[in-house]
Structure formats: structure tokens, C-alpha cells
């Protein structure tokens, strides 16, 4: 297993950032989702050994997160969320420098730096000073430094932040290409749900420091069936009765009701309740659940 953690607790003073998080992640691309303050970055920092958990423990790539941090970091790549670079250096020197710090021989690090800069599309500007880079170029450079030492596991913290649509598409293509290698696992933390949906097959959702859900995206989406309907008549009682059946209902701006219906219940029940409440269902269609719907359902936000 690449990441195996059990009962991780971490607090910033009195604020609990993580409470009893356990994960068991193997290969492929994994999305790490959660609203602001959910504990995503804290979890990545614990996995990298920047922070030591107050309670619990685990292993990354088979190495203990408390005692074998340098070994973990040798085989892990990290793309931080913030802008970060070393002023005065050009992209080749910067990337090879960080390759060397990872333990690569100097010549090899330089050769590999050229390769990864070509790979992320910075071949033309690799001798330019980093201070002159645009945010999109800096984002690519951060990806280049994360993969220069050919890690087995890559943590990407908000990899598409600050990118225009083209830049975003290109970075996502690179991530998909990297994660398609069966021996590299990618953990992507992002607020942009379509990015996660596009690149990941597995998702971990954190909420208020706790594990809210985890699993294959396709399987998680099947937890509830989503129906869209338009009704005529006084819908208050109808909606109340649906909610009483532990069914989540949202109303869109167009007046369409989105009903998350438990799959173990018969959907005919919806029509029966509608008939009893004397309202007409004018439009009824089974809809595809998106990751956004799933996120809203699990985290409890619209």
C-alpha cells in the first residue's frame, strides 16, 4: 500500500485539524477533497513529515511517517499550493538543484531537469530567471521540481490554481499522463471538483477534520439516485415528506427539484406521495450524479 494511516489526530492549539482519520490508499490517482479548513493540507503535511500527528500513525510507501521521514521524502514528490521558488536561478538550475537535494547525482540531476522541463512545456524558457515567470509557468515549474527525481508518489496541492483554461487543461493532461504509469501514485488536493473528476478514479472527502467519505468515484455516486423533477401545485408538504424519508432535496434557480433518492427504496414511492399531496409531477428524469452533487451531499453544502 502506498499510504496507510490509522487514527490520525492533529490539533493547532485548541483547533482540531484532523480527528481519527484512517486511510488505506493504493495505486492510481486519488483526489483529496474538502471545504476550506477540512484538513487537506494538514494531512499532506503529516504524510510528508512536516508535522507530527498528536495521535495515530501510519506508513507512506512502507516507511513510518514519524520515524522515517527522510526516506519518505526521497521517493515522494511535492507540489506546494503557494508560489515558491529560489530567486536568482533559472529553471534548469532550480530543477536540477532540487533533484540533487533529493539525492540524485549532479550530472544526472541536470540531465533529468532538462527532460522534465521539456515534459512540462518549459523548454523555451528554461534559461530564464524564475522572477520573470508568469503564474502559469511557475505552476508548471512546481510540477517539474516535484517529478524531477522520479518519485513513486506525488502530492499535488491545488495544482491548477491561478491557471487560465488552456494552462489548466495542459496541467491536467500532464497529471493524467503521470498517473497513468501504474507504478506512480498521485494524490491531488483541489477545490476544483471537475479537475478531480477528470483526473482521479478514487476520492477521499474530508470535512471538519474527519473522513466524510472515500471510495471509487463511480461507486460513491451510486450511493444515491438523483432525479430531477418539475411539479405543479403547493410542493411544501410533498418536499417535507420526501425529507422525512431521509431524502435530500435541492431546488435550482429554474424551479427544478433535485432529489437524492436512496437506491434501496422504490422510486414509485415518489409518485405515491405526490398523489397523496395532490400535486402534479410534470417532468421526471433520472440524472447523472456529478462529483459536485456527491460533495454537496457528503459535506452538507450547496
Amino acid at each position: 500500500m502506498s499510504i496507510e494511516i490509522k487514527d490520525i489526530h492533529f490539533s493547532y492549539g485548541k483547533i482540531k485539524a484532523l480527528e481519527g482519520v484512517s486511510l488505506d490508499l493504493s495505486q492510481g490517482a486519488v483526489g483529496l477533497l474538502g471545504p476550506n479548513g477540512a484538513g487537506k493540507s494538514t494531512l499532506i503535511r503529516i504524510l510528508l513529515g512536516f508535522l507530527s500527528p498528536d495521535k495515530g500513525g501510519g506508513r507512506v510507501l512502507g516507511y513510518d511517517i514519524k520515524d522515517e521521514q527522510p526516506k519518505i521524502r526521497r521517493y515522494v514528490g511535492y507540489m506546494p499550493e503557494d508560489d515558491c521558488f529560489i530567486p536568482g536561478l533559472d529553471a534548469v538550475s532550480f530543477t536540477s538543484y532540487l533533484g540533487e537535494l533529493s539525492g540524485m547525482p549532479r550530472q544526472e540531476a541536470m540531465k533529468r531537469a532538462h527532460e522534465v522541463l521539456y515534459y512540462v512545456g518549459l523548454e523555451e524558457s528554461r534559461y530564464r530567471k524564475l522572477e520573470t515567470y508568469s503564474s502559469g509557468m511557475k505552476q508548471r515549474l512546481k510540477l517539474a521540481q516535484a517529478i524531477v527525481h522520479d518519485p513513486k508518489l506525488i502530492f499535488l496541492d491545488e495544482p491548477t490554481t491561478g491557471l487560465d483554461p488552456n494552462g489548466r487543461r495542459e496541467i491536467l493532461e500532464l497529471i493524467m499522463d503521470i498517473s497513468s504509469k501504474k507504478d506512480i501514485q498521485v494524490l491531488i488536493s483541489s477545490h476544483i471538483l471537475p479537475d478531480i473528476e477528470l483526473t482521479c478514479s478514487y476520492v477521499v472527502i474530508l470535512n471538519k477534520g474527519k473522513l466524510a467519505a472515500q471510495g471509487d468515484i463511480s461507486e460513491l455516486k451510486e450511493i444515491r439516485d438523483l432525479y430531477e423533477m418539475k411539479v405543479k401545485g403547493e410542493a411544501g408538504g410533498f418536499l417535507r415528506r420526501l425529507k422525512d424519508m431521509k431524502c435530500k432535496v435541492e431546488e435550482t434557480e429554474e424551479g427544478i427539484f433535485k432529489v437524492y433518492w436512496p437506491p434501496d427504496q422504490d422510486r414509485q414511492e415518489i409518485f405515491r406521495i405526490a398523489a397523496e399531496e395532490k400535486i402534479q409531477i410534470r417532468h421526471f428524469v433520472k440524472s447523472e450524479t456529478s462529483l459536485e452533487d456527491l460533495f454537496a451531499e457528503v459535506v452538507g453544502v450547496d
Partner: protein
Amino acid sequence: MTIKEKGYSHWDGEFIVKKFPWWPITRYGIKLTFMRKLFKFTLPMSLLPAVFFLTGIYISERLEDFPFLRGETSQFLQINPNYFKVYFTQGFMLFIMLMIVIFCGASLISDDLKHNSLQLYFSRPLKKKDYFLGKTAVIVFFLFIITLIPGLVFFIMKLVFSGSLKFFISYPWLPLSIIGYSFIVTGFFSFYALLLSSLSKNRRLVAILIFGIYMLSDIIYLIFRSEFRSHYFSLVSLRANLQQVGAHIFGQKTPYDIPWIFSFLVLLGICVFAGFVLKSKVKGVEVVK
């Protein structure tokens, strides 16, 4: 087919366990310092006192060729441990060291703080110790160019110019003094610069602090000395403490009438304090509790 079209490719090399994992940090630190235009001028200028003192050593062995230098000047040209002490501890030389430290040390940590690059260092298999060693070695490298290396060259050249081992036999401990004081003065300035560099993200402010605190400590000492006539106030002055310890190490009378060990303890205390501050300030991630 370009690499981009081929897709991601693995690196087929092997990691090496480096004996000095901090060396790349030092190498790049030195490279970045040399890229500063003004430093390219400052470093050769800082070697002028060494050239002057080396010339003095040569002339001391050829006084008969320089009859106009006899008299009071010949007193200065008596090569003994005091000659070395004067080179290492004169106010001007310490000022040059301060300038070098400002150029090579002010940005060492402050730039990393400003550009969030600490997380890049600490996401690699580096320990805090390696990071500090790498940064310290940059300052050590430049200060040794104007302390340890000239000191040892003076000693060797004295033996070469005199053509005998008499000087070595008279002062066999002098090389150790040169090495010892070079390490003390370099170690102190390294901790001093790194401490101040870790306190701000603004490299210019750090440079002002490095210069200002050094000068201010001296001004405070001079004010108190003129007011209270006590040599103990020399403990406030960084310059005076370095001169006091230097004089003792070179076996000379100390310039201030207080035990040299007090000055040494003051310098050591600053280094220990700097160590604690650096440990708490430099982290892979900023944790606001």
C-alpha cells in the same frame, strides 16, 4: 518524437547517499552570491589588507633593500604573533568581515522565507541540520577567504621569505591560533547573520540589521565607557568582544581590562541564542497556533 509526446518517462539512475547532503545548498549559495555585481568588486577589495600585510612580511625580511622604512615603521614590521593579531582583530578588518557577511549572509534565509522555498527544501530528504550547515558554509567559505587562508599564507610565506624554521620554532602554536580565531570569528558572524536573516523576509532590512546592530553595540559601549569609565561595558560591543578574544588567542595583552572569558561567553551566548531562534523559525511549514 519529443519527450512531451512520448509521455512521462522514468529516470533510470540510482539515488546516492551523500556524505555531505548540504553541499548543493552551499554551492548554490556561493554561486548566487557571486552573481551580485557589487560583491564582485567587494571581495577583491576585502583582500587588500591581506596583500598589504603579506607585503609587510616580505619587506621585514628585506629591510636592507628598503632603508627608508627603518625607524618607527620597522617596529610594525617585526613579524610576531602581535602582527597576526593586528591583522585579525583590527577594527577595519572586522568591518570588512561585516561587509562580506552582509553580502553573502543577509539573504540566505530571508529569501527562502520570502519566496516560500523552505517547503521545497524540507520536502527533500534533508534534515534541518543539513539546511543550516549548507547555509552556514556559504558564510564560512567567504570569511575563510579573508581570515583563515591569508593567516596560514602569512605564516607559510614568513617561513619561505626567511628561509629558516626559526619562526615556527619560536611560535609553534601560532598556526593553531590562526585556525582557532578564524573558526571563532567565522562561527560568530555565521550565527549572527543567520539569526537576523531568519527574522525578516526583507533582505535589505536584514542587511541594515546586521550592520546596525554591530555598529550600535559599539556606539553604546563608547557612550557608557565615557560616562562610567568601566571596561566592563566593552561586553556590550560585538567588535570589542571579538578583539578581546582574538588578543587572548594570539597570546597578546587584551585591549580591555576584563577577563577575556567574559567576552568569549558573550559571543557564545549570542550563538546559542541564535541556534534556538533558528530552530524555531525555520520550518518546512508555517504553523499558526
